[in-house]
């Protein structure tokens, strides 16, 4: 279990996260929603141990700060909002980089590493272009390669910062299905999402506003609260798939 208590992140004058309690369990998908600047990405980075914070973060009961950076890298993998595309690198090479937390600085690739890389490529469906150059792939394919890199560490927790950005609807849907599958395999998945509707498959939604937890619960439960955050510019509407949030620009 990944657990944060009274987590505060930021400068004294302008804290970005204020006294937040947060839990992520293995086999659970939690979605972070909230307007721009509400602290979603900051929360991810703090839970990764990359930002100075006060309060407690514990991973399986141990304080995060006590773990070495390599240990953290093996347990929590992170897919940022934008990953630069390395020039002239093959897909397999990029995915294999995910094994760094096991190899350290001087280690070499062993059979276990190759197995994990093959598994990650299979799960994400990037095997067919394993030997192609990354810069030759489409944005959606590339995103899956970067996800495979994260999974190659065989982490217990997977953090994704707006993973559906820049993807067309089909690629969005495929990615969200993949996240649900990974959750079913026992991974703890934490996603920052821009589009509240993408949280439909999540087990729990945490709504942030100005660094504080505004609401927490199932997707349907928190949807009215989410719509309210956008002060008249969003509304809950019914659809065949259940309630959704839509942007509203019509007068009245």
């Amino acid at each position, binding site marked *: 279990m990944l657990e944060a208590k009274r987590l505060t992140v930021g400068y004294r004058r302008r804290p970005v996260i204020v006294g937040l309690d947060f839990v992520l369990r293995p086999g659970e998908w939690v979605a972070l929603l909230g307007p721009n600047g509400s602290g979603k990405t900051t929360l991810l*980075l703090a839970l990764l141990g990359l930002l100075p914070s006060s309060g407690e973060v514990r991973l399986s009961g141990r304080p995060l700060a006590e773990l070495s950076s390599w240990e953290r*890298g093996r347990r929590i993998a992170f897919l940022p909002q934008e*990953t*630069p595309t390395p*020039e002239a690198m093959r897909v397999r090479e*990029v995915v294999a980089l995910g094994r760094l*937390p096991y190899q350290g600085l001087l280690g070499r690739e062993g059979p276990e590493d190759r197995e994990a890389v093959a598994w990650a490529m299979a799960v994400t469906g990037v095997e067919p272009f394993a030997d192609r150059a990354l810069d030759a792939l489409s944005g959606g394919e590339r995103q899956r390669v970067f996800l495979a*890199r994260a999974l190659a560490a065989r982490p217990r927790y997977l953090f994704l910062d707006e993973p559906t950005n820049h993807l067309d609807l089909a690629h969005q849907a495929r990615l969200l299905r993949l996240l649900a599958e990974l959750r079913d395999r026992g991974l703890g998945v934490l996603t920052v999402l821009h589009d509240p509707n993408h949280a439909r498959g999540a087990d729990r939604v945490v709504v942030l506003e100005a660094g504080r937890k505004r609401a927490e619960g199932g997707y349907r439960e928190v949807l009215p609260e989410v719509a309210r955050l956008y002060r008249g510019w969003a509304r809950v509407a019914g659809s065949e798939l259940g309630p959704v949030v839509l942007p509203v620009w019509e007068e009245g």
Partner: protein
Amino acid sequence: MPRAWVWAGLFGLLLAALLLGVAVGSVPLPWPAVVGGLLHPGRDPIVFDLRLPRVLGAMLVGAALGVSGAAYQGLFKNPLADPYLMGTAAGAAFGAAVGLVLEGRLSPAYAEWIRVGSGLTVPFFAFLGALFAVFLAVVLAGGVGRTRELILSGVVVGSVLTGLTTYLMLAGADRVRAVFAYTLGNLAFLGWPEVGRLALYLALALPVLVGLARVLNAMQLGETVARTMGLPLEALKLVLVVAATLVTAGAVAEAGIIGFVGLVVPHALRRLGGGDYRFLIPASGLGGAGLLVFADLVARVLVRPAELPVGVVTTLLGGPFFLYLLWRMRARG
């Protein structure tokens, strides 16, 4: 292209460079003399005392520039980065100018004493100047953490030092030619002591850079990702900067400023064999070594019996190539 072919090509290039570099000169040597001279060290003074140190020196300088160019491109995540980016060239020129002007100011006997006693006045000052420039750039950038600040402070330090060098050249007017010649890059003065020093710098830095090649690979995915994988990035970047600066400073101190090798070689090899730094760093060493020997051959042959500074040749060849890179990047969007 399969990497095995690239390696084979690079070794072939190096062997051709060695043979041609020894054979061609003011006295052309027939092939049996070249091979014989190489196989029996000490037999032929032209081969062993004149041509061979120059060829080996050119190889080591070229290797240093290729290796550090590749490392800087990885470090700055910028394919247009080159070894001089952080002020090494301007620093070395400044150091050399200080050395040359001092030498002119000193009593002849004292200058002679320094020269004979240390054997390395100007290269020594140039080496210190290069290290000083990078040190200054890193301090001004507040460490190696922020790449953009690092590039900017390197550029600033470079232009300030270039200004100071110009001032020194004006102040010590009798030394203008010497400083100027130094900044153009020249391999004509490379002998066995220089080869020894260059080999030492490379032997110190190359294992570090090759060993950290995977760190450079990881950095290409962004520094946040590299950190989440567990890499202690601040410390590693500092080690990379120190190692890359050491070889660059050594090369520029012994041979002056030789442009474009460190930019062009890693770039071309990335196209041929891919962007994995475990391949790119050693391959750029071989490629730089071969390329600089050929550039030196052109410098020696083109205006025979006189010589061009090799820096002029690499700049004339590298400039158009650089434009080609820019044009391709623009075409790719």
